[in-house]
């Protein structure tokens, strides 16, 4: 039970880091696509979603592992 509580806490703390990171990457792409050329809206938004998804996939495990390690050290 205690383990489950710890896991949920770690998941929440990690999400508070990697979600904004992935969102920032998506937004950065969207801004670059909007400023950089005549891309249709679908391409800009689709691209932002894809970049955001890949950034989420990259950041989620890295951040979760670090948060978990820090939590274990505190224990």
């Amino acid at each position: 039970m205690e383990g489950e509580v710890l896991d949920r806490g770690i998941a929440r703390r990690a999400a508070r880091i990697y979600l904004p990171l992935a969102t920032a990457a998506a937004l950065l792409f969207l801004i670059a696509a909007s400023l950089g050329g005549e891309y249709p809206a679908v391409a800009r938004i689709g691209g932002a979603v894809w970049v955001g998804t890949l950034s989420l996939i990259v950041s989620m495990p890295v951040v979760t592992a670090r948060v978990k390690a820090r939590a274990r050290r505190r224990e």
Partner: protein
Amino acid sequence: MNASRLTDSTISLPVQGMTCASCVSHVEGALSELPGVSQVVVNLATGKATIERDSSRVTIEDMRQAVADVGYSVPTAEITLDVRGMTCASCVAHVEGALTDLEGVTAAVVNLGLGTARVTYVPGPVAVSQMKRAVREAGYEALERSQGLDALDRERQAREEEIRRQGRNLVIAGAVGLLVMIGTFYDMLGPLRSWIPEWLSYKWVIGLLTTPIVLGPGRQFFANSWRGLRHGVTDMNLLYATGIGAAYGIAVINTLFPQAGFGGEGATFFESAALLTAFIVLGRWLEALTRGRTSEAIRKLMKLQPKLARVLRGTAEEEIPADEVQVGDLLLLRPGESVAVDGLVEEGYSAVDESMLTGESLPVEKKAGDPVIGGTLNKTGAFKFRATRVGKETALAQIIKLVEDAQASKAPIQKLADWVAGHFILGVHILAVVVFVFWFFFGYRLYFDPASSFILSPYRLGEIGVFGFSLLLSVTVLVISCPCAVGLATPSAMMAGTGKAAEYGVLFKAAQAIENTSKLQTLIFDKTGTLTRGEPSVTDVLMAGAGEAEPGGLTAQDILRLAASAEKNSEHPLGEAIVRGARERGVEVSDPVRFESIPGHGVEAALQGHAVLLGNRRLMGQRAVDIGGLVEQAERLEGEGKTVMFLAVDGRPAGLIAVADTLKEHSREAIQQLHRLGLEVAMITGDNARTAQAIARQVGIDRVLAEVLPQDKAEEIKKLQALGKRVAMVGDGVNDAPALAQSDVGMAIGSGTDVAKETGDVILIKDDLRDVVVALEAAKATMRKVKQNLFWAFFYNILGIPIGAGLLYPVLRLVVSPELAGAMMAVSSVSVTLNTLLLRRFRPSLRSGRQTQAEAQGPEQPRWVTEPAAGG
């Protein structure tokens, strides 16, 4: 937890859910972080984690939790025992307590009314026989309620279930994927179109066919990826899920909303999602097949263990489970039955086939006093034997453990491959982002050509937009980069190799031993007992001062008598040979008053009022005994390959005794073959240089290290290693332990079946020098297979990544479709699987049955001569 276990111990835990090399890295990482764990090796092919730990600091439950934390599981098994003798609730508590005290037992529920105990446990750390013993020690009796499944059957069942599951997925994905492909390429089928309904080519029909493929056989990738991400781990499932999900998602959007701007109806790519799924599932099925096949060696060995044994209790025969036989029990064996445990024949006579364990092709005759090995097959007669080793102590159990440990271990080359694969996944996703961004902002504008097409397909990219094109390349990079076969490349070859070698009686203790053996440059053989039979016999007895008055009136008989009496308490083979020789000639051997062995020199004794010295030149020199008159004869005898020992009585030379040991059969043949393999062969011995050189000439050895004291053998090996050579030592696993341990590869020859006590990285069960060649050839064949597998595993990635990222597009206007990328990954799994299976054809060069010329000539025989030595 059993508080008395306060020392390091090694346990093996099964781990479920691992599919690739990165899974291995995550599990190893999770277990290594636990306090008290000193080493972890996870083997994907066996599905096991071998952990060295301090059991007072980390429990099995801790390890199970650590594995679960990263998204995998340690499976448990259940067994029901019949427990007799319980009468009340406290009995229940005693039995439950006895069972749960065993490490590895997670739960025990005892039912007093039914007289049963249902035990949940982790297979591996605890065995059913331990549970029964624990109940017995608590004062009750326990029997297995149902035969159920033992660990081997459970493991096989799990593997077969995995093969069946992936097989079902493959059939669905393959069959429906074929329809999708036919529908997609409908326009290009020419006259065949008359056989195919046109509606199969409609996009929404293709979409409907693709959906069950992605949500059915493809679901495993999404489920495994999500589980991994939630626990902060990434594996190859993520690459597949991202690729399949993106292709399918865009295809659905383009079908339902063709005007949305993702490329329209011409860019649906349903076939990409469908075929990608089919090819990846094909790879998974092949991997499951490979994992199932390569543990065949262990399975074959385990099947040798009979389940029942016939024990004699008084005059009555009783059939009991083999694991309940105790040391000291008298067992009866009939023709055609397997020996249940190790023992000594007490009565009867038969021939026993031991080939399944030792590789010895001819049945071995057994009579009273001879040992028998559990798992071997009785051929013709019947006999009674007394059990000497049971359970984990039997030769069969030791060999199985050795092979299992070797298969669970990791070679350095595999550690590198796993590390690369483990860190690859994130790198691939970053690369996919880079590829997408490049083609989106730059590449499409500079290079895109609507007439361009996929490689090996006339399917044009048509009106695909910037987003669709960039996404296509990004997805292709994800799939094509996946080194899915890397996880199995090395362990599958290692398992096949160790299993094959075990069939010939060659046991590698660890995967590293195989890798080291394949790189050897120099082999050093111990002389006595390794190159020679180790049963020397007296060939010459010479008296000092021929034709003159002999010191003390000594005759040849006197010399032999004095020498034998001095050596009576010696355990040295030369001493034993002299005693044997004296007894054979009817010479009386008496006990010395005083005896002292001087290692590397000889012995000193006091008997019948005389001080007797027997030994080599070094001993005589140290005690200032002038042996000048015997030197010429000694050198002549040493030139014939004999070992000469000088006898001095009361400080004066009395004579000498020559002893010769015969070379083992096949020794010349083995050395010749080792030379053909490009190895330098040396011999190390405490014998004098002349004798050693004579032996070396007979077998064709290049280099002789003679007059080496036992304690200096390891130093000699160190000197060779300092020259940059990779050195193996072949010798007795017990007596040559320091030298074996110092060498890069220690080979213990002639261990018999008590393999556990042998020092050394390689155990050669038979006393046959050809097995040294077998070990080398098996190691080289295995490492060749490993390197080939790694090549096939990485080749397609290295070739495919630049192409998949669009590097050739500006020049050739060709891109790799996601399904072609998936096909290449499946081909890499096929390549690794088929290549590993080829190792089954391995046959050692010296085991073909052909007799070589050297073998036909046979070893030289010594001659018996008694004559006085010239001089005095």
